[in-house]
């Protein structure tokens, strides 16, 4: 991308709240993969005469999301009807929030590679209900009609709208990762994209540095974080090429086609959007009193950014390792559990490195999930292993071998070490015996050392090492030999 051009991007992310029932009725939310239209009722299919009743659990999770993302929360917000006709919307309107959303003015710290984190502003978070699902084909066969499944209709979502603070496809990717991480940590959403629990639309325009924002284009059909990154990359290039030819960018919605790696204008029969929002007369204002907000704040766990900082400061981990280890709540909890056993300041960096390199490497190699590995290598046993390294009883190379063995068999590190001959010997009386025997065996080297050839000490260390069958700690041997031969 030409250096003179700057990307201006904002993301709208729809996230499914992890409730068990729908937003305005008691239908279950576990309809993914279930038989079509098995999780429906008169409310979520828009039958005449029904009234929506708000799910308290959804309010709580939305408040949690807003707190985790540093937003100001409105004590009283309003549900509004967003009117449009589409067969996935049984009432011909979606209950959403418009003029007075639940929360505004948040921010999210985004780690872009190893760089210090950048803050992306959040414009608003509001609660809304999901639409149903349309089917246009069965298998590979296109239908000449459409089929509708309302299992998803009425599932609670929050829409999280960022400010146009994102400047590159990589930042967009990092923003989404950070958002997913924080929402999962906070227990707000599972964010499973395969199940449609997290969906992204992107707004993008290009400008020359210092100029006002240009005309923005909306990109839809982004099914993965990678799709967002690739689509922004493509769309940025397309807009630059057009602008450099003196063309104007049309404000439009484009769809990302992952197969051809390009965006194309969305073909639509719809005129320009005119949603005719108005307050929903069936629903009272949504109340989020301070008592509820404070209760939710107390329930929030330590969030990734704070945890990352603590891992760096208290455990002495590097920025990149800390980033890896705070990648999921499960993993970060594991690290904390290990650190309770090891000495934070000295041994935990070693444990952190072991987890980041050996343990996660093993995971991806065997495509296992973390919970299975944690079951096999408990925090206690990884802590023990780390202490063996910290005490100098085993080398780092040996620790990796032992950890591999622990991952395979789930056995205790001490036990494995014993079987392998007990690791390094640290006992000075035992070491001194070997040192004296080695000195007796090596008169020439002893004479050399005494005449000033320091390097000859290596031969004596080697002899002592041989006597110990490789179990002596070479640093201590060296020290003892020097003491022994000192004039």
């Amino acid at each position, binding site marked *: 991308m030409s250096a003179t051009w700057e990307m201006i991007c904002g993301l709208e992310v729809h996230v499914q709240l992890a409730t*068990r029932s729908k937003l305005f009725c008691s239908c279950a939310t576990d309809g993914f993969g279930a038989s079509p239209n098995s999780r429906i009722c008169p409310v979520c299919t828009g039958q005449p005469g029904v009234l929506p009743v708000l799910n308290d659990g959804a309010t709580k999770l939305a408040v949690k999301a807003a707190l985790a993302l540093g937003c100001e929360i409105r004590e009283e917000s309003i549900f509004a009807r967003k009117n449009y006709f589409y067969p996935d919307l049984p009432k011909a309107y979606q209950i959403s929030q418009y003029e007075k959303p639940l929360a505004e003015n948040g921010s999210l710290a985004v780690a872009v590679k190893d760089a210090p984190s950048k803050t992306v502003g959040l414009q608003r978070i509001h609660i809304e209900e999901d639409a149903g699902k349309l089917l246009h084909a069965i298998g590979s066969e296109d239908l000449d*009609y459409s089929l509708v499944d309302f299992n998803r209709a009425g599932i609670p979502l929050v829409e999280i709208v960022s400010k146009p603070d994102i400047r590159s496809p990589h930042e967009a990717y990092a923003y989404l990762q950070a958002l997913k991480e924080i929402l999962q940590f906070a227990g707000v959403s599972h964010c499973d994209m395969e199940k449609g629990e997290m969906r992204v639309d992107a707004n993008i325009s290009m400008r020359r540095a210092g100029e006002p924002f240009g005309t923005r284009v909306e990109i839809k059909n982004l099914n993965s974080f990678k799709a967002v990154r690739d689509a922004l990359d493509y769309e940025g290039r397309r807009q630059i090429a057009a602008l450099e030819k003196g063309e104007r960018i049309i404000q439009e919605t484009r769809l990302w086609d992952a197969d051809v790696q390009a965006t194309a204008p969305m073909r639509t029969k719809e005129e320009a959007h*005119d949603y005719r929002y108005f307050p929903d007369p069936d629903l009272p204002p949504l109340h989020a009193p301070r008592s509820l907000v404070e209760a939710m704040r107390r329930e929030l766990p330590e969030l990734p950014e704070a945890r990352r900082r603590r891992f760096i400061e208290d455990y002495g981990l590097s920025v990149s390792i800390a980033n890896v280890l705070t990648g999921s709540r499960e993993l970060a909890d594991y690290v904390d559990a290990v650190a309770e056993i090891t000495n934070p300041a000295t041994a935990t960096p070693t444990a952190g490195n072991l987890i980041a390199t050996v343990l996660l490497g093993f995971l991806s190699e065997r495509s296992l999930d973390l919970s299975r590995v944690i079951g096999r290598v408990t925090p206690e046993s990884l802590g023990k292993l780390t202490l063996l390294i910290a005490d100098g009883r085993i080398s780092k190379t040996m620790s990796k071998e032992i950890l591999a063995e622990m991952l395979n068999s789930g056995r205790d590190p001490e036990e494995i070490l014993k079987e392998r001959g007990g690791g390094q010997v640290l006992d000075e009386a035992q070491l001194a015996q070997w040192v004296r025997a080695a000195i007796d065996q090596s008169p020439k080297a002893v004479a050399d050392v005494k005449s000033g050839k320091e390097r000859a000490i290596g031969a004596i260390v080697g002899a002592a090492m041989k006597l110990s069958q490789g179990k002596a700690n070479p640093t201590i041997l060296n020290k003892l030999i020097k003491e022994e031969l000192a004039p």
Partner: protein
Amino acid sequence: MSSISPEEVAKIAKLARLKLSQDEIALYQRQMSRILDSMAKLRQLDTQAVPPTASVPWIEPSPREDEPAAFSNASALVALAPEREGPYFKVRKVIE
């Protein structure tokens, strides 16, 4: 007095998926104008001291616990549809 144009009536009809004849457009233009004129009269009132009302107060339903409960007759809802196929609602094709 006509505070709404025939073009606006036609646009609203289109958004509401209503097909109106010229006579109907004229009729609704008159009726909607009268409604809007009445609203305009209301707007002359001084409401400075009145908080905005998004919905008419009623006994607020106690919040619903997040507890799923299946509706016993889901298939009857599908059966109500003008067209259906298996467990699905069937509608006219919406994409090209």
